[in-house]
């Protein structure tokens, strides 16, 4: 944890070569993000092993789904013998956050670059909570041309850590004694909560507070659907409140896209 990311080191660099931007992204990932994903996927690998999935299937699930809640939903329901449509619906619900994350993350990643449709589809296969949060935090301080290489450097390390964690968890358990593992696993959600709480725009700040409160309140009642409900309700209320605030300040309304 000696290379814990800190926003100031990003702002110090006025322009970056492609190579330097890739390395910068990779360095930003080493430390808390890579460790967090590695440990989360270790937990996933161990669960998959206990449920009786084969190693290739487990690794392929991490590699191709790349979204832990959906991965767990798939394995738990498949093992329980749930109907195919139920499994698909549960995975779709669990990973629906990918839609708003890609819509808002893609412009950050591209930084004004024009890429073909298939290239864009390929790029966003690596979008998940950690990289979306990090891009929102880091991209505005990066030169626009440096954002795509930064993203590629970051996700290369993150993906490698996630796949390594899956393999380690599947083959040997978790490497750490249980109390240490509990502390280590506590780190990632705290890191990401602090990162999203640092959102610059007041609307997004409010969305974070409402989303967290609603998510916690609804989870014991409606389970995993709480993320979806809290996201839609919290985001909509935050947007409405943010719009009112802008109007009271006499600012022009932003035009529809």
């Amino acid at each position, binding site marked *: 944890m000696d290379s814990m990311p800190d926003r100031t080191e990003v702002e110090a660099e006025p322009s970056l070569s492609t190579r330097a931007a890739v390395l910068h992204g990779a360095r930003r990932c080493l430390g808390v993000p890579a460790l967090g994903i590695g440990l989360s996927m270790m937990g996933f690998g161990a669960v998959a092993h206990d*449920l009786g999935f084969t190693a290739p299937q487990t690794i392929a699930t991490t590699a191709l789904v790349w979204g832990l809640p959906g991965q767990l939903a798939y394995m738990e329901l498949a093992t329980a013998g749930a109907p195919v449509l139920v499994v*698909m619906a549960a995975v*779709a619900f669990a*990973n629906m956050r990918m839609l708003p994350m890609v819509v808002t993350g893609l412009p950050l990643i591209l930084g004004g670059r024009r890429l073909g449709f298939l290239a864009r589809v390929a790029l966003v296969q690596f979008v998940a909570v950690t990289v979306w949060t990090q891009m929102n935090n880091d991209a505005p301080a990066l030169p626009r041309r440096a954002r795509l290489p930064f993203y590629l450097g970051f996700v290369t390390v993150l993906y490698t850590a996630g796949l390594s964690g899956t393999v380690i968890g599947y083959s040997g358990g978790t490497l750490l004694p249980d109390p240490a593992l509990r*502390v280590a696993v506590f780190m990632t959600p705290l890191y*990401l909560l602090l990162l999203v709480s640092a959102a610059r725009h007041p609307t997004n700040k409010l969305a974070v507070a409402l989303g967290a409160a*609603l998510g916690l309140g609804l989870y014991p009642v409606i389970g995993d659907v709480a993320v979806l409900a809290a996201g839609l309700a919290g985001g909509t209320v935050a947007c409405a409140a943010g719009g009112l605030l802008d109007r009271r300040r006499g600012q022009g309304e932003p035009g529809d*896209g």
Partner: protein
Amino acid sequence: MVEPLHGWGLMLLAVLATFVWRFAGVLVAGRITEDGRLFAWIAAVAYAMVAALMARVVLMPRGDTAWETMWPRALALAVGFVLWRLAGKRLVIGLAGGVAAFAVLVALGY
């Protein structure tokens, strides 16, 4: 062991159920402008979803909603947040403080 359909076939359907959102995201991103109200709403929804998921994972990592397992996490989360605010939103301080507080509680047997 897992049935054949509950093997590769079902796994690919689960992959598809995630892929559709990313694919749809690229389609939508190509059709709306970054400074529009629709974009602002989608961003707010994304922030709220990430916060909802992470708040749940930090307090109820295995879906356990019992207060006995939740309070040490809630306390450590509060310590992390307060330190983060006091330190001028320095992420390292909040993270180290929260993790240290949780480590102490775990070491004490909670």
